[in-house]
């Protein structure tokens, strides 16, 4: 069972690239584009690690 990573990043290019790299490395990845959606995802399916950008809309 692969480790679960949650990526929270508002920039689409960066988020998609990070997700792709992590998937290539064999992780199971979920992504959100703002803090609120990230919190929702994290609560629904608790990840092993969260990679989160700082200073994003809805990230307080």
């Amino acid at each position, binding site marked *: 069972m692969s480790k679960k990573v949650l990526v929270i990043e508002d*920039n689409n*290019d*960066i988020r998609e*690239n*990070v997700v*792709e*790299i992590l998937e*290539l490395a064999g992780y199971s990845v979920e992504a959100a584009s703002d803090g609120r959606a990230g919190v929702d995802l994290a609560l629904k399916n608790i990840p092993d690690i969260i990679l989160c950008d700082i200073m994003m809309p809805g990230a307080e």
Partner: protein
Amino acid sequence: MESIMENAALLKAIIENAIDGILTIDESGIVESINPAATKLFGYRPDEVIGKNVSMLMPQPYRVEHDGYIHRYQRTGVPHIIGTGREVIGLRKDGTQFPFRLAVSDVDFSGRKIYAGFIHDLSREKEAEEKLRDYAAHLEELVEERTHSLKESVEALQQAKEEVSLSLEKEKELGQLKSRFVSMASHEFRTPLSAIQLSASLIDKYAENFNNPNIAKHVAKIKNAIGNLTTILNDFLSLEKLEAGKVEPAFTKFDLIKLAEEITEEMQIVAKENQNIIYQHTGTTSVVNLDQNLLKNCIFNLISNAIKYSGENTFIEFNTEIAGQQCIITVKDNGIGIPEADQKYMFEAFFRAHNTGNIPGTGLGLNIVARYASLMNGKVDFKSVVNHGTSFTILFSLT
């Protein structure tokens, strides 16, 4: 008898030759005698005056009132001019007027009363007085003029001051605008740069199977260019934070050897082929009280300069030393060195030595190092010989 005659002659001579005018009138104001000085003053011949009312020598309104003055004195016995004298105005035959001092005495003579008037011309005095008054007025004008011009100067100065403070204000606003722009631009540039870097890594990954050295070469070039750009943007951001006074050192106690070993390891990865970073610590203790982040930044900067400006197959000596109350950090390379003429400008922002050729750089690194060191009460210095190498030291006092 003879002596009385002589006395009368003497008196007459005195009166005739007196400088002041003298005339006598009877109780009704009729002129009985007038001396040459008086006739000359009023411009009449004696026969034009004698037997006439003395008021002919006065301008209006005194002329019509003179009889009244005499009657009042005779009725009340209260003198207004007799015995004291005062300044009055005389009327010449030609109609002009002149000021004079009039002293009147009443004389009982041969059983009747006569009045003797002594006339002292004041024209000259008045003129002098007038001149003095004019002069005083002129002086006042001058003072006023000067005061006015002084006031104007003060106003001009005040205005200049306001203009200066206005341009200072504008400069400050421009500075803030520049700050906001640099910080916005640097942040906004870094985001797409990160995306490019990640894409380059992915291309690298996907291209592995093609086994094409050209793909690998160009991906490496992209990554290298991104690295340079990121360094520049980081320098800009650091400088901006320093300029805005936003960098505050947080002093903590930490192990200098541990930090230095970490840095050496990290820098060894980005060093050129066969460039070896040799780290060594001297001293029995290794704990310092500094800002770990700022110090790391300083050393990073110095070592990346050493890597950048020296060739492959060289050693970079990185030393830390704690001796007595001093901590000395040294980074020494065998690189291109700094020309002597450039050495005094090395810590100025955006300055680069003239022998850097096409080696990329902003000229900000050493400026930032010096400022970070100074925030931690340290001092940066260097020794350099062109084509032999450069040795940078940061000196901290541990007291």
